């Protein structure tokens, strides 16, 4: 990762005490920009910790997009109608596209895709735990669209106003596509819910399995969230985990009613006084277990990812070798490589 010094504007070479003063001046300017809701751009000076936080978050987001392809791609070859097959293929393709934007956004912070993929494959960086649950039936494709993409949108819409420009702009496009996916998932479940008794049961079963993990997607409760306070201060994050979770529950309750499906929480009810829904206690033990690697599909997901990467190595090497030869021909140089 590049250091702050590497991103100092020209002429800002400073040492010792002078260096400290310069850093302080840049920090003040950075803080003022954030406070004024201005966007921080790649060439702007930024604190190392801000950069590191963004890299961690954007990488995790990018990894989630590409790992997230797996549970849904699991149903592409079995989609029960050609229309649904086209919708699902387009959705999984969009996720690959989101991965591309997000790895590009991370690149603006000085970290390449190869380096990030390496961290994913070696377990040094994470992806959203939700994708460590299996898609057992076709209805899971609908439940993922409705609940998982719904939760993702609730999380991501505020990121369109994130202080870091490239990330905010990538999120605008991602959110538009995600909201399309969410409606498609809802519509898939509606068709099942209104279908045969077997289809209805399939939809209910999927919602029963995906509801609680979807609530966990907002992260641990505010008082246990490791990175929240600083991220809020930097305007990377705009709302607390618990606020977003509450917003999501309030959105889902009427939608579940329209779907004719039941959310699996006996404590879920409207609280007149608070003007929002009360809901049951989340099993945080499960959350931490899945996060630690003990979910139903952690091993399977990362193994498939590594396998695809390793089996594709000869293809990437060939492309690089071909490009290098081609570059050599054009410029008269040899040995140029493409990462």
């Amino acid at each position, binding site marked *: 990762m590049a250091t702050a010094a590497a991103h100092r504007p020209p002429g800002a070479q400073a040492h010792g005490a002078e260096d400290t003063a310069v850093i302080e001046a840049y920090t003040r300017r950075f803080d003022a920009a954030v406070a004024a809701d201005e966007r921080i751009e790649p060439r702007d000076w930024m604190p190392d910790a801000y950069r590191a936080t963004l890299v961690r978050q954007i990488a995790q987001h990018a990894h989630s997009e*590409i790992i997230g*392809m*797996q549970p849904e*791609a699991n149903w*592409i*070859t*079995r*989609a*029960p*109608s*050609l*229309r*649904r*097959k*086209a919708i699902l*293929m*387009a959705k*999984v*393709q969009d996720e*690959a*596209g989101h*991965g*591309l934007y997000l*790895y590009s956004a991370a690149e603006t912070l000085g970290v390449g*895709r190869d380096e990030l993929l390496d961290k994913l494959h070696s377990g040094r960086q994470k992806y959203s735990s939700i994708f460590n649950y299996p898609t057992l039936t*076709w209805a899971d494709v609908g439940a993922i669209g409705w609940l998982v993409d719904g939760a993702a949108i609730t999380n991501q819409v505020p990121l369109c106003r994130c202080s870091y420009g490239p990330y905010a702009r990538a999120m605008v496009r991602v959110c538009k596509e995600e909201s399309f996916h969410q409606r498609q998932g809802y519509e898939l479940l509606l*068709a*099942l819910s209104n*279908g*045969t008794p*077997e*289809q209805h049961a399939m939809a209910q079963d999927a919602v029963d399995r995906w509801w609680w993990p979807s609530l966990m997607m907002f992260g641990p409760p505010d008082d246990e969230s490791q990175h929240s306070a600083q991220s809020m201060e930097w305007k990377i994050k705009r709302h607390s985990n618990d606020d977003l979770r509450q917003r999501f529950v309030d959105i889902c309750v009427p939608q579940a009613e329209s779907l004719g499906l039941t959310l699996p929480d006996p404590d879920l009810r409207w609280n007149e006084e608070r003007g929002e829904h009360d809901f049951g206690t989340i099993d945080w033990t499960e959350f931490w277990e899945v996060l630690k690697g003990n979910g139903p599909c952690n091993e399977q997901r990362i193994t*498939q990812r590594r*396998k*695809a*990467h390793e*089996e*594709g*190595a*000869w*293809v*990437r*090497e*060939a*492309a*690089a*070798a*071909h490009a290098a*030869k081609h570059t050599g021909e054009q410029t008269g140089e040899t040995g140029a490589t493409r990462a």
Partner: protein
Amino acid sequence: MTPPETTTPTGTAAPAGPGAPVFPTAAALALGDDALVLSHRLGEWAGHAPVLEEEVALANIALDLLGQARVLLSMAGDEDELAYLREERAFRNLQLVEQPNGDFAHTIARQLYFSTYQLLLHAELAAGDGPFAPLAAKAVKEIAYHRDHAEQWTVRLGDGTDVSHERMQRACTALWRFTGEMFQPVEGLGLDEKTLTAMESAWLDSVTGVLGRAGLTVPDGPRGGAWAAGAGRQGVHTEPFGRMLAEMQHLHRSHPGASW
């Protein structure tokens, strides 16, 4: 739900009444099945591609082909009944498109051979005034991209490293015997012997050119033959195709009459 009449290889649907045009159902099925089956194979790559850009590209090609398949199958009957309720022997696709993905080189060789053929075919159909002309005019633009993608990768892999060269050569050779079938007449397509011969010769020129630029050898094996490699148009398929259909049709068949 019984499979519709159109699932039998009758060539043309019965006219709606005296003087009504005879619709080339067999031809719509042949082209529709090609697109459907290859789209399915490409869809199997999702989550397994060698690089993220190829996740996007392979899905894109699969989606184009699925779009073509839906139009063509709808010309012949109900798209879902045709896709999900026919038995293996009723499918009219080329054996080439049902071949398993293999490694990335096999997928690319299959795409190069097929897209080169499909581009020539659709250019021919688009130039005519038959029932396939409107679809072909739109599809030509998509297919030109598919072919370009396959050509670029053939050259990259043929030229890249020793390993990629060897894999690409092996793939081109392995699939060669399925390429003669593309130029056999299809009932109702309206292409005469002379046109098919010209298409075949243009296909050979084009593929030879790409393989040459990739530093690959044009395979010298037969492109059809005594045991009729390539009888997909007659409903004779290769073993992997039955398994592909079993997976594709399982859920739909498990819920007879359901809507999705």
